[in-house]
């Protein structure tokens, strides 16, 4: 109940600060432009339009959703401490884990709203322009939106962990940008370099799968680009899809774990903190 009160206030603040509006407009704008421009290379003849959109949109999500999530979450704890509002809040009958859970629910709701509305708009426009969309594609699209929200949850939790550990807001922002670069860009490049060097001699498929599980953005990518047969053909991941032994369920579980572990650690760090 306490967590719900805090969540409500966070949503209220996000609406007031136009965070919700900005995030929704950003995601909707990109989804729409990808829907129209994204089909240019494949042409529009005989192509399952929505599957193409899923490929391009999920690639975009990997960059954008973590960034938005970290922007919302990086100063959730340290920022409130610096502004002094945390001092007063914690003098109320509320446990620290309830504060954090409430913030998490609120921030996740904002992110989910923006994602569902922004991406949903793309489907609505495709349907309105008379593209043929079958059931399989719709399921894949829904899975993409759902997993995007989950990816957001992962990075909100990571942002809290950083926020609970560092001394000031500037450091939190710096560390979060570093983490974003690492998980979104550097990790994959390093992995690619490693694979190219190795030439398949030492690194087995299992080892590669494990390494991919250590990065939530890769888990997300695998889930969306290999999980659905008609999508993976467009993604150029059909080969990888045949090799991967990770089921969609295992990948989702990995994303959940990537949310719960940082969130748990953030709660622990926050509970021990003195202010």
């Amino acid at each position, binding site marked *: 109940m*306490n967590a719900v*009160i805090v969540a409500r*206030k966070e949503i*209220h*603040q996000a609406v*007031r*600060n136009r965070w919700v509006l900005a995030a929704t407009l950003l995601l909707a704008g990109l989804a729409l432009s990808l829907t129209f421009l994204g089909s240019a290379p494949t042409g529009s003849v005989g192509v399952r339009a929505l599957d193409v959109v899923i490929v391009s949109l999920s690639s975009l999500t990997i960059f954008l959703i973590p960034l938005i999530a970290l922007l919302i979450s990086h100063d959730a704890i340290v920022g409130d401490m610096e*502004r*002094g*509002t945390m*001092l*007063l*809040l*914690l*003098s*109320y*009958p*509320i*446990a*620290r884990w309830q504060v954090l859970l409430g913030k998490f629910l609120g921030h996740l709701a904002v992110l989910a709203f923006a994602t569902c509305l922004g991406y949903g708009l793309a489907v609505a426009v495709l349907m309105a322009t008379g593209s043929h969309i079958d059931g399989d594609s719709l399921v894949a699209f829904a899975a993409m939106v759902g997993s995007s929200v989950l990816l957001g949850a992962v990075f909100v939790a990571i942002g809290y962990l950083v926020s609970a550990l560092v001394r000031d807001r500037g450091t939190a922002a710096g560390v979060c940008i570093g983490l974003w670069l690492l998980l979104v860009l550097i990790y994959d490049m390093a992995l690619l370099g490693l694979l190219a060097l190795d030439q398949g001699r030492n690194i087995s498929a299992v080892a590669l799968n494990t390494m991919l599980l250590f990065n939530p953005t890769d888990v997300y990518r695998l889930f969306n680009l290999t999980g659905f047969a008609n999508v993976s053909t467009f993604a150029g991941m059909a080969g990888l899809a045949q090799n991967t032994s990770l089921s969609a369920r295992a990948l989702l579980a990995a994303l959940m774990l990537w949310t719960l572990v940082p969130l748990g650690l953030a709660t622990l760090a926050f*509970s021990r903190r*003195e*202010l």
Partner: protein
Amino acid sequence: MTLTARIADVTKRYGPVTAVSGVSFDLAKGEMVALIGHNGAGKTTLMKLMLGLIRPTRGSIEVLGDNPAAGQFAGRRHLGYLPENVSFDAALTGRETQAFYARLKRESVAKALELLDMVGLDTAALRRVGTYSKGMRQRLGLAQALIGRPQVLLLDEPTTGLDPELRQIFYEVIQRLAAEGTTVLLSSHVLTELEERAGRVIIMNRGVKVADGSIDELRRLARLPTRIRLKVSGLGSSEVPAWLPTSASCRRLNGHIVEIDAAPEQKIELLHRATAEGTSVEDLDVMPPSLDELYAHFLKSTETPR
């Protein structure tokens, strides 16, 4: 006497700095206690310890049946706190902020909003807190601390930034609450303000409690002289009244005013003599040592032995 808070031999260290050292005191229902001491004396640290915002290095604390250091917070429903520099989320209005805090305490939102009128925020309550001045934030801070008739009120420098009128209202409100059984612990620099109101004074110096008692008790302990001012007619410019014992120290303030520093046990006798027949005393003022002087005395007396 029902205790609402108990601080037992509490020490708090931040690395090499000892913020509070071996402090003990009990707070009873209906007490109004002034916590005084200069900046860094440990007043804010004590309040934070009582709220569980920080944990004591040594010693134990109990507030409304909770051990705040262990994260217990059930009793905080009946606790109001006003931090020294209170701040709120800038995006919300005063009403929304007050409603949020009332919900957290499971108190009626409508009643909590009435408090906004009481502190004079009625029109500003619809504006965002980000637009508030320091004084208005302080008013909102008071309003949230008073939600749900608290049994313990911790007020850290509550009157800074308040105009004299609101200061008056503020003291009326907390005195009424204290009369109804609320324990009020307030820290302040404005000692003259507290003198008439606080039933008990705790003086802190560098993390150590140096005095604790009612103002009368502290006066007795301090043994500071009471100043007696006499208006005497027909006295030469450097003379002192003949009836004055030689042991009493006195000085001439101007033409016909004599000021005597009377030790506590001399006081009555001096007054008898002054008002006896045949003296030319026309007027008389008795000034017991003020809280300011007591504070300075206790600080000095703890500084010298070190």
